């Protein structure tokens, strides 16, 4: 096979090589590849599909993963395989009239989901389009880079996985490595994906992303915030509301706050520039919401104090999120496809997706489509909605609406 370099051939080698190559190509090629691989790849080669594992095998597999991640990241990583809840079908709605294009959701998502920072891999792509043009993709700019947002004359449309009820991506997968869960989440098994990228060609929303290189998850960086409100939520948890303190030095005090990151410059090896090195500042005056802020949950014995000194609190920016799910944010390897799961590791435990929590203007709504009292049902029943590319009949469970 042509996978491995061979030493300069001699006359007798030639015969050997030829016959090996063409008579026993398959077996020898695979054996050679296996021999040249690390233990993880060899294990994966003999793996069994997730759906065919019983409870004991699943537990053993999760423990093996935790062990491997502990060795790789020098920290405890919890991997669970939380089943879908009965009577739940997740849906999402995004208010285009509120979104200010600040891309906080993009980076909160990267951090929460342990996506690669280098090369950058982001589930959410925010398109900037002109007010007079409406949703016209050919004039959409995903690389807008102003000093402050929102800007006059434009609107912003964040696009991520639309969680189609009839997803083209799972239909085309040749290996059943991606599927729709009972609660409506379209997931990928990173240990089964062969990396053919057919799903990426099939997705009408650019919602699927490939790990072109080994994903780099852990780097440095923190974002300081001012805690302005703390409300108890019971069982040692508090809901914290904070505003950005961009100029403050960071001296992190709260151990468990929602991780997010600031933008870092990254130049693709090919020279293609993705995003710049600073997030745009929120222009509160131009925002539809007067007081952009972050709301997140903190586990703590005592309520976190309101900020007295600048820099007391901050978000972990580029830390590995240790709370992971098998079909969600567990660390990936190169050569597999990944995508938004509505933060499966959060929503199956009753929490909001990271993008919903971080949105400083409350443009993102999430909930159970089967629960008549949910936020998402309120939006569907009371607002004017549209789904993206309805003519493709993918039947998204992600809705866009105009709230104001």
């Amino acid at each position, binding site marked *: 096979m042509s*996978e491995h*370099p061979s030493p300069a051939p001699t006359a007798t080698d030639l015969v050997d090589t030829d016959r090996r190559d063409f008579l026993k190509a398959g077996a020898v090629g695979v054996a050679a590849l296996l021999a040249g691989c690390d233990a993880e790849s060899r294990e994966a080669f003999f793996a069994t599909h997730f759906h065919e594992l019983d409870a004991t095998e699943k537990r053993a597999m999760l423990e093996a993963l935790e062990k491997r991640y502990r060795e790789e990241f020098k920290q405890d990583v919890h991997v669970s395989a939380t089943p879908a809840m009965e009577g739940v079908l997740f849906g999402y709605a995004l208010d285009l009239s509120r979104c200010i294009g600040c891309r906080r959701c993009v980076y909160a998502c990267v951090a929460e989901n342990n996506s690669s920072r280098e090369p950058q891999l982001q589930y959410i792509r925010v398109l900037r389009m002109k007010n007079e043009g409406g949703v016209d993709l050919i004039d959409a700019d995903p690389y807008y880079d102003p000093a402050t947002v929102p800007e006059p004359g434009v609107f912003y449309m964040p696009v991520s996985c639309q969680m189609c009820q009839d997803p083209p991506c799972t239909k085309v997968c040749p*290996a059943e490595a991606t599927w729709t869960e009972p609660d409506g989440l379209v997931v990928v098994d990173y240990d089964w994906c062969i*990396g053919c990228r057919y799903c*990426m060609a099939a997705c009408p929303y650019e919602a699927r992303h490939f790990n072109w290189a080994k994903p780099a998850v852990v780097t440095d960086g923190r974002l300081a915030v001012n805690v302005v409100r703390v409300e108890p939520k019971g069982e040692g948890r508090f809901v914290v509301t904070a505003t950005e303190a961009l100029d403050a030095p960071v001296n992190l005090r709260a151990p468990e706050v929602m991780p997010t990151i600031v933008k870092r410059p990254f130049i693709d090896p090919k020279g293609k520039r993705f995003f710049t090195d600073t997030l745009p500042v929120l222009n509160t005056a131009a925002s539809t919401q007067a007081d952009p802020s972050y709301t997140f949950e903190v586990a703590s014995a005592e309520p976190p104090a309101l900020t007295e000194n600048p820099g007391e609190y901050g978000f972990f920016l580029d830390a590995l999120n240790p709370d992971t799910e098998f079909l969600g944010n567990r660390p990936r390897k190169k050569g597999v496809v990944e995508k938004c799961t509505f933060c499966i590791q959060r929503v199956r435990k009753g929490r909001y997706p990271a993008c919903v929590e971080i949105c400083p203007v409350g443009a993102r709504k999430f909930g159970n489509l089967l629960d008549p009292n949910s936020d998402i049902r309120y939006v569907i029943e009371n607002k004017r909605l549209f789904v993206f590319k309805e003519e493709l009949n993918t039947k998204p469970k992600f809705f866009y609406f105009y709230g104001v």
Partner: protein
Amino acid sequence: MLAKNLYRFATSSLRHVLTGGVAYWLWVVLLLIGVAVGAHAYSEQFREGFIVTNMRDEVCWGFYIGNFTFLVGIAAAAIVLVIPAYVYDWKPIREIAIIGELLAICAVVMCMLFVMVDVGQPLRVWHMLPLVGTANLPSSVLAWDVLTLSLYLVLNFVIVTHLVYRGFVGKKPSKAFVVPLILFSIPAAVGIQTVEAFVLSGLSARPFWNSAILPARFLASAFCSGPAIILILLQLIRRTWHLEIKNEALWKIAELMAYAMFLNLFLFGAEIFREYYSNTHHLLSYVYSFTGLHGYSAIVGYSWAAVIASVLAFLIFIVPRFRKNMFLLNVGAVLIYVGVYIEKGVALIVPGFNPSTLGGFYEYTPNWLELRVAAGIFSAGFLLFTLMIKVTVPVLLTRKTDALAGPAPAGGERAAAGVLPAATP
């Protein structure tokens, strides 16, 4: 008896492969160097990931899939020889139909190699096979594609092995066994090309491919590009082994190619008319291909080169006087090969992704590493073809009682010691 014959067949084949002149060994060494270059490039991709290629999320398929698509066409084109030979019983071509089948085997092997180098987790490709893995059948066209290609490979391998082995032991081929297989290879060839086109044309997200006539265009272009290679190979084989291949056979193939190229250009024109006249957003991929859009124009040269080469080749092949001129015939064959290769390799795949589904542009052309990997796979394919032809031709030359072919001139031993010159189409 069978075991003894098989042993004799194997050792004799080995002897044919191992005996050759200086030119033969230079050619083999050149191909082995090509394989080594490709393997070295691939090892870098295997180690570092696909970041070392020019593909990215926006253009997630590139040169590898383009080559794969092209080679499926080459594999299917074997039937351009098989149909006149066996369906219309046209004798001049029947003697050489086996060359087409050998080419099909090599093309499918190269297809498989291009699939292997284009997946991020090559060790897991068995996941998409039925029975051993979890093939997503019937819904995934790619799973069908791999399955049908594998069957087509086995089919052609069985046919060729049967013909050559029977010829070797001096028996007639079993008509009851091999003729149904040969006839079945005709719909099978149409099938692999159709399934391959469905892989692309089934994607509603990509208007450039999402066209009902894409499979027809694939078939038409395959029935030009495959025979283009066969035309040149037949001349090389004729010169090297003095195997009797009549000019009439070459001209008949050229005539069939002219019809196929007409159909190819007609279908292309039908697409162009629909898109430009209706002028919807779906036109943008064509504008990107032929004039560039928003300042992005990396593909424009490729697209025009493909069209111009195809039109010129059509003009050469449609005029009987031109195609019967051996020099013009070869110019036309090269033009067709180049035209279809550029079209399938780059000009078909890249505009499917530009503009992207969210309206973005990413200028993809294959980089040096992708070109080296592809060169390695082509070297492996040529090497396989060289070795198989080295085993096959002496048998073609010596079998005198073959029911499927007429008497061939003697000279097997001379042929066995003959040389095969470097032959890159």
